């Protein structure tokens, strides 16, 4: 769900991911840490005025991995559009 939502946008912050997925903050943190370690997500920390903003972007490796996953699921499930 997290990766699907990141896949369809350029980047998003923690609050947006939480609002979109309904996952708890702890869940999201845990998943994003693992995705970042795997190189699938890049984290950008910046300031919006004086307020810190952390955004997450699905890396090209992450997009490729998700596309591979979609293809595999498509093969397993049959002739459904992938």
């Amino acid at each position, binding site marked *: *769900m997290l990766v*699907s*939502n990141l*896949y*369809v*946008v*350029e*980047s*998003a*912050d*923690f*609050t*947006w*991911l*939480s*609002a*979109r997925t309904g996952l708890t*903050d702890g869940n999201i943190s845990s998943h994003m840490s693992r995705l970042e370690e795997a190189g699938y997500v890049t984290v950008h920390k910046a300031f919006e005025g004086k*307020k*810190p*903003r*952390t*955004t997450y972007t699905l890396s090209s490796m992450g997009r490729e991995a998700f596309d591979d*996953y*979609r293809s595999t*699921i*498509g093969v397993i499930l049959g002739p*459904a*559009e*992938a």
Partner: protein
Amino acid sequence: MSTRSELEALERVAYREAYSDGIFDLFFGLSLVWIGAAWLWLPDYSGLAGVLPAIFIAPVIEARKRFVEPRIGYVKWSESRARQERRGLVQILGVGVLMLVGGVAVYLWFGTGADSEVMDTLVPALPSLLLALGAGLLGLVAGIPRAVGYAAILVGAGFLTILREADPGLDMFVSGTVITAIAVGLIVSFVRHHPVSDAT
């Protein structure tokens, strides 16, 4: 959530929900109320009524950002969505210019002479009908169905003005009031479903 169509639907829903706060709706509704009221009760200043909303557009955009982002976060849409937004804006502006030119041409053709009575009947509702076209286009281009609903409200109010042979401005005042009420409902619902997040 992995097929292409599911992902496209996910993005469409996310985009639509990003504008579900009601702030722009409130601004639109109150602007219509103000312009309609000016035409009805301040006829000497009615020509300038549209200036006030135009002045407030930028502050409203900034205020909305400060209201919405702590609740539903920040997102940068994909390049394809950004292109679609730019294309939609050009389409709406293009139609607006065509409508203006066409409206002037129609008025000049029919407005003087035997058919001027038809134009005199339609003129009080023309602003509403033109705004309805703009709102309808926005709804179709941006994929925000309630904008099409607002277009229907404006058309209904326009025809009400024609049928009642009412003064110009009544249609905008009435439709603005209805849209403002809808916007307040949207804002209340948005606040209830999206409390301010502490996450950064």
